[in-house]
């Protein structure tokens, strides 16, 4: 008994359309996940407080053996220390080539705040707490723990994703302070100790050009980046599939996406905040 199945009309066109539609649906499901996550933040704060505190402790300082060598604080501090030293090296040398190396302090207070610390922090956050969140949630998804949560009546999105977003925001506040302090100190140490500039000169220009408003904007920028990074990472963890290797791939995809999104976000916020004129006056 053979039936001939009618072939679809324009199969290639249909497939192309389907793949476009699939991508489009994925964007839609991502948006729905993000809005659900953000919408259930109050729920998470009210009902899942213990889990949130546990996550904050875990994200901030790490647990067990990791705490000694590489809590998030240590990693972010170390990263911004190196990039801060980079400001000293590049800033001093480039400025010295036009004879104004006295302004290295200005370079530190300007580039560190506006560009380097938000950029470094975004990478560090996505690599540490973000990747950690994806791996944890991916493992839970693979082991069907998320389905189990739903079965016992726990709202999994708010229990897993919203708590992580809030924990990320809470953790990033001290983290930002550590990051920017390390960047400033490294720039100062590099300029004064290694290149031998007088610390009075450095401090004068540093203090003159350090604008508290820029600092606050930079801080808010980092908080906004954290929200986006945690959203992206929890989404990829929540929808992981394909066994242990699938979790690893989900982490890779999440890191990739969040780094691109964070870079775009930095540009958008910087352009929005500082505008085309730059909102900056060298001459006071």
């Amino acid at each position: 008994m053979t039936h001939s199945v009618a072939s679809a009309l324009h199969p290639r066109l249909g497939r192309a359309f389907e793949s476009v539609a699939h991508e489009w649906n994925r964007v839609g499901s991502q948006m729905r996940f993000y809005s659900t996550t953000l919408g259930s933040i109050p729920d998470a704060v009210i009902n899942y407080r213990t889990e949130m505190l546990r996550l904050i402790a875990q994200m901030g300082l790490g647990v067990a053996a990791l705490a000694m060598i590489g809590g998030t604080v240590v990693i972010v501090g170390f990263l911004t220390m190196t990039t801060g030293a980079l400001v000293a090296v590049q800033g001093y040398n480039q400025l010295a080539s036009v004879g104004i190396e006295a302004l290295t302090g200005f370079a530190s207070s300007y580039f560190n705040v506006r560009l380097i610390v938000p950029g470094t922090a975004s990478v560090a956050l996505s690599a540490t707490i973000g990747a950690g969140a994806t791996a944890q949630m991916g493992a839970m998804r693979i082991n069907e723990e998320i389905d189990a949560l739903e079965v016992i009546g726990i709202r999994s999105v708010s229990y897993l994703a919203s708590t992580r977003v809030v924990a990320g925001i809470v953790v990033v506040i001290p983290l930002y302070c550590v990051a920017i302090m390390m960047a400033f100190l490294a720039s100062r140490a590099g300029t004064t100790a290694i290149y031998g500039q007088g610390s009075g000169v450095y401090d004068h220009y540093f203090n003159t050009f350090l604008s508290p408003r820029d600092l606050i904007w930079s801080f808010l920028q980092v908080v906004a980046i954290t929200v986006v990074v945690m959203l992206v990472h929890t989404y990829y963890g929540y929808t992981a599939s394909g066994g242990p290797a699938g979790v690893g791939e989900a982490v890779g995809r999440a890191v990739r996406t969040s780094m691109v999104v964070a870079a775009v976000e930095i540009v958008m916020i910087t352009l929005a905040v500082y505008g085309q004129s730059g909102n900056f006056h060298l001459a006071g």
Partner: protein
Amino acid sequence: MTLAVTKPVRAVGGFFAMSLDTFVLIFKPPLAWREYLLQSWFVARVSMLPALMMTLPYSVILTFIFNILLTEIGAGDFSGTGAAIGTVNQIAPIVTVLVVAGAGSTAMCADLGARTIREELDAMRVLGINPIQRLVVPRVLAATTIALALESAVTVVGLVGAFFFTVYIQHVSAGAFVTAVGIQFTVS
């Protein structure tokens, strides 16, 4: 307590031991060239788009911030220098490393990790195949090769992005920008 102390130290030691093994085996034939080609293609495929999408924002933002400063001291013509130094010396290497690590290497880590869990690596050892030579060496070489190629692509894209941003949005003369970039890279 001693375990808690020695664990990180052992991890570091194990890492160096494996790195040394890999480095020695790079120079020892046979090279698993088929795996090398496959991995190169894989790394190139997954890192190309993220690398370009990450370079553009970063080089644009660096140029933007640098140009504010240069315009303020009346040296807008030098914005090409800033873009050149920033993109070529700093952003392109960092972005390349981040993307190769974030896009290619995480997938390799997941792949090898899954193979270890499923005891495939042990099976290879039993068959007398050195998994480092067969699996790790081609991956290391592939990531290195592609990073080299990616770096040049990223540099070009970053400079072109900075050019369009500087010329069309910040209204710096195109000739001045190109000249400044050129001066920066003239071998003297």
